[in-house]
């Protein structure tokens, strides 16, 4: 809410500087967005007298002026304007001056002749005839003869005002107006608040002879007041009113429209003026729009209406979109003679819905959406009539039509001061509490410790003791709130087990040299296509955002891989030649589509690595470490994710439950992302790993007896997985097996085509004794037998 300081001074004594006023208002709950000093953008422009004009030798339209600015020397300024004459007083922008239009004027040469500034037009000063007579002239602004040479133009134009932009919180719609803010200032500064008391003259007759009002939907329109003014004398509104309107960001139009706008800014209550003579059947009907009805609004746009929208209709058709914008047909124009004036309360959610549905938001609809006071409707109407009367804008017909279903009584709250202090923790004295509440217009008496407070309808934000406590405290001073330690039981803070485990996984990743990344939870709807998934893949069942910021951010992700690939591509394209990255976040899985209940949010981890040292097995090592950390026993199987290299990917099972897929990125997918190097990626179902109950660690005695190492070099078909050989050895060795180490895989010379040589070191150990040669030979035999059973034979 922008308000000029001079306007506020009309309602309240302000006995302090603007800065101090603003600081105090901030501490009372009214944030100040900006303080704009008028004329801040008009610098170093003074009244100058043209003493002499000479033609410019190199131009047929430029003239060289010698300007007297009240100093010893004249200032030479070249102008292109033709309306200047010797002896004229003009606004002279001197060297290094600033104009409201944004221009910075410095001296220079115009076609070889020195010019030490610029003579200004009204347009260049951003002023109109309202600000200064002659401002609209095409050419330099010629000032009145009585202006004093050398005077700053800000003074000439009366730019001594400040415009303060108060941020009004959603609970205080009553402060979206001059009076509301002024009342608060009077409390904050402890000065007098002077509300205008409306009085006006009427010309007799009866409104009932002029118009009938029928409110058909009191639910959407709880109060509607109408008055009639005839013999309009439409002209410009006075300077003070125009200035107040402009300062608040609106445009003056004519006295009648300006009065309705001014009253809205002053009281917070929007009004609407209808051309009385355009009202069919002299009827006003407040009703829902009929199916198929249309309206052309003041701004010339056509809208199709729906029955949930409230309109003000005449006897035939909608004449106004209730509370939002008037109709073109009943607009007040220069030749309008008679006026029907509306002041009403409309239900805020209905205004909001209609405004959103039609895409219209106006000063008026904004206020109705935030809520206007049903009692204040009457005051606003009275005030408007007073201004019409005072400004001699028309003749007011006697009588008022006030349609309502009863007005609310003031609410009575009773609460003890102890209860207020209990919440604040600050011992505000009882009499101070009473004084503050009364100063805010909350009529309060005290009996013992019990407060009885009358809450007027305009403060419907005040519901109970918490609200009263806030009102008391913001005036008493938030700076009086001191820090205390909480009383009560000593509590121990805990993290959830999932978070503790996740933190450990992150620590492991850091020690593996990986960087944690953070990416958005929503992705482009088409991003999933880059993974080449089958049409019926469940990951395609993505939840769409109904009102996304754009397609790029339109879809809740069902996987973390596409986000990861984008990050890898970003880094690779920046010539960062190696890296390990991971993210722990959620994937969103709909229970059904379109969704009707909250989706599953599943903790998920993605890992991506690339660089000359990285391969499939580096990633496998990381995954194995994570699984071990979580207490999982891992198995690997071939998998068939379409976005991974078909021969270089694996499914990981943790304790027989699928928990991850990883592998080398498929070159087709890589090229989609502009990735030109090999990258290895994994997506891990963290929910599976976090759900594993790690077995309790029990100490095992260190071995007392020596281990025996036996090497096995095997020859087998090259497509037999090494894992199968290991499994065979493990089965053969039984409980004596300590560990198996692969030390060589060889294909080539001396190995038949289609075969490979695989060599292991096998360590055997018994906990109870040194193994005898016989025991060792027995185990050897079993191992070889098992290996032979899967087609591997000992190399001779």
């Amino acid at each position, binding site marked *: 809410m922008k308000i000029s300081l001079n306007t506020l001074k009309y309602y309240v004594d302000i006995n302090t500087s603007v800065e101090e006023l603003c600081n105090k208002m901030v501490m009372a709950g009214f944030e100040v967005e900006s303080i704009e000093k008028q004329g801040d953008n008009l610098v170093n422009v003074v009244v100058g007298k043209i003493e002499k004009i000479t033609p410019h030798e190199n131009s047929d339209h430029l003239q060289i002026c010698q300007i007297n600015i009240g100093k010893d020397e004249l200032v030479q300024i070249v102008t292109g304007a033709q309306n200047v004459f010797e002896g004229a007083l003009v606004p002279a922008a001197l060297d290094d001056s600033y104009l409201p239009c944004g221009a910075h004027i410095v001296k220079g040469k115009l076609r070889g002749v020195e010019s030490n500034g610029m003579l200004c037009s009204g347009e260049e000063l951003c002023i109109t005839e309202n600000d200064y007579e002659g401002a609209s002239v095409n050419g330099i602004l010629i000032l009145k003869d009585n202006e004093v040479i050398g005077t700053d133009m800000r003074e000439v134009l009366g730019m001594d005002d400040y415009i303060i932009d108060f941020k009004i919180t959603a609970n205080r719609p009553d402060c979206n107006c001059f009076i509301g803010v002024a009342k608060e200032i009077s409390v904050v500064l402890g000065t007098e608040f002077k509300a205008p008391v409306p009085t006006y003259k009427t010309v007799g007759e009866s409104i009932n002879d002029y118009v009938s009002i029928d409110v058909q939907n009191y639910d959407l329109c709880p109060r509607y007041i109408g008055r009639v003014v005839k013999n309009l004398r439409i002209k410009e509104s006075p300077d003070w009113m125009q200035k107040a309107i402009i300062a608040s960001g609106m445009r003056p139009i004519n006295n009648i429209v300006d009065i309705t706008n001014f009253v809205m800014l002053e009281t917070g209550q929007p009004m609407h003026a209808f051309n009385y003579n355009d009202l069919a059947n002299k009827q006003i009907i407040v009703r829902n729009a009929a199916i198929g009805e249309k309206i052309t609004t003041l701004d010339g746009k056509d809208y199709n209406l729906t029955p949930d929208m409230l309109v003000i209709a005449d006897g035939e058709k909608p004449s106004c979109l209730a509370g939002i914008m008037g109709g073109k047909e009943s607009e007040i124009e220069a030749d309008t003679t008679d006026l029907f004036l509306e002041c009403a309360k409309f239900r805020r959610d209905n205004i909001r819905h209609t405004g959103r549905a039609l895409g219209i938001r106006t000063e008026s609809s904004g206020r109705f959406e935030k809520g206007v006071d049903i009692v204040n409707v009457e005051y606003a109407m009275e005030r408007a009539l007073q201004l019409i009367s005072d400004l001699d804008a028309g003749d007011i017909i006697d009588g008022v039509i006030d349609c309502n279903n009863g007005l609310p009584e003031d609410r009575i709250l009773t609460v003890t001061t102890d209860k207020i202090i209990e919440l604040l923790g600050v011992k505000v004295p009882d009499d101070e509490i009473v004084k503050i509440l009364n100063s805010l217009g909350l009529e309060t008496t005290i009996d013992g410790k019990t407060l009885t407070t009358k809450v007027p309808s305009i403060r419907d934000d005040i519901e109970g003791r918490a609200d009263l*406590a806030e009102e008391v405290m913001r005036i008493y001073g938030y700076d009086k709130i001191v820090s205390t330690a*909480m009383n009560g039981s000593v*509590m121990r*803070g805990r993290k959830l087990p999932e978070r503790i485990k996740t933190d450990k996984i992150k620590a492991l990743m850091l020690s593996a040299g990986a*960087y944690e990344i953070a990416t958005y939870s929503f992705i482009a709807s088409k991003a999933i296509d880059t993974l080449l998934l089958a049409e019926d893949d469940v990951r395609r069942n993505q939840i769409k955002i109904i009102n996304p910021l754009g397609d790029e951010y339109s879809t809740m992700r069902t996987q973390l891989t596409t986000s990861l690939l984008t990050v890898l591509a970003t880094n690779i394209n920046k010539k960062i030649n190696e890296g390990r990255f991971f993210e722990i976040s959620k994937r969103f899985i709909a229970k059904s589509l379109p969704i009707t*209940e909250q989706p599953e949010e599943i903790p998920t981890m993605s890992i991506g690595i690339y660089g000359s040292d990285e391969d499939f097995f580096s990633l496998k090592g990381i995954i194995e470490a994570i699984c071990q950390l979580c207490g999982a026993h891992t198995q690997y199987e071939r998998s068939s994710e379409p976005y991974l290299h078909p021969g270089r990917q694996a499914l990981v099972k943790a304790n027989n439950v699928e928990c991850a897929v990883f592998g080398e990125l498929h070159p087709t997918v890589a090229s989609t992302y502009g990735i030109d190097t090999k990258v290895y990626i994994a997506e891990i179902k963290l929910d599976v790993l976090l759900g594993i109950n790690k077995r309790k660690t029990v100490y095992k005695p260190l071995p007392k007896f020596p281990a025996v190492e036996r090497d096995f070099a095997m020859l087998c078909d090259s497509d037999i997985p090494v894992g199968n050989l290991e499994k065979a050895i493990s089965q053969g060795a039984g409980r004596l097996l300590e560990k198996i180490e692969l030390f060589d895989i060889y294909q080539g010379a001396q190995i038949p085509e289609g075969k490979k040589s695989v060599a292991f070191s096998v360590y055997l150990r018994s906990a109870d004794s040194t193994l005898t040669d016989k025991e060792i030979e027995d185990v050897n035999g079993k191992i070889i037998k098992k290996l032979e059973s899967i087609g591997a034979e000992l190399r001779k």
Partner: protein
Amino acid sequence: MKSQLEAIKASAIAAVNAANDQAEIEALRVQYLGKKGELTAILKQMGSLSPEERPVMGQLVNEAKAVVEGLITEKTAAMKAKAQEEKLKAETIDITLPAKPVKKGKLHPLNTVLDDMIDIFVSMGFDVVDGPEVETDHYNFECLNVPADHPARDMQDTFYLGENLLLRTQTSAAQIRTMENRKPPIRVICPGRVFRADEVDATHSPVFHQIEGLVVDKGITMCDLKGVLEQFAQEIYGKDTQVKFRPSFFPFTEPSVEVDVTCSECGGKGCRVCKGSGWIEILGAGMVHPNVLKSCGIDPEEYSGFAFGIGLDRLTTTRYKISDIRLLFENDKRFLDQF
């Protein structure tokens, strides 16, 4: 015989002292002390002595042997020490050569800051809980005293996923779930991701992070709120940090406050960072609205509490002086490596 012994001893001492390397010493040891050495040979001549002379002479020989042996040991040790000293000297390296890197990853800066905050609040007795990111209208708005079509909904542009389903606009939704599931005394924080329909620019992101705090107990006051926030601010910004409350409005707290802390950059004197005010706004807070307590089945006459919401992204960008919030989500390794 005695003089012969003295002569051998003297020549042995002279020879050992004159020796230049270990090989020479070893040769001398063999020459004098070895099985066929000169001193050993003397012992062999003992048979020719009288029984009275034998022990006397034996003692003299053994003494001579001990002296030579001792000298050899000493000399050997000195030579070894010297040799080692020379070797070490020769091994001197240029300590300014680059270190062999230990590959160490980094947490995302948001989580580095979050972990600090979690530690602070856990130490103050707060539990750390989670809540869903896709919320119902009920939890995100209704229970927080923001009924449908309340103007406060305009304060937050919400992403909708379906009828009554939305991406939570605040972690405050987790307050409600906590109060429904726990009995006072309650002390929790809920860190998490939140979403608002803000176009992406240097200071706005549609995805950001909050840490919600909630305390409910008997006799909790605004002064307690200030106490907790002051303790938190001093942990994060330094022990001289002051906290200032300004009145504000949130639908789910009453009274509500905006919380400023003294600018950590200038200590409150006023600088570019705090735009000359000496204060930086860090969070919004307030006393839990009685309607909110009621909607969670907690009697506002018996219990009171406070809640606060801290913007993690802002805290992170101010701590590290990150000028553009988009950097947090771009994940350039050179950026991530700095924290």
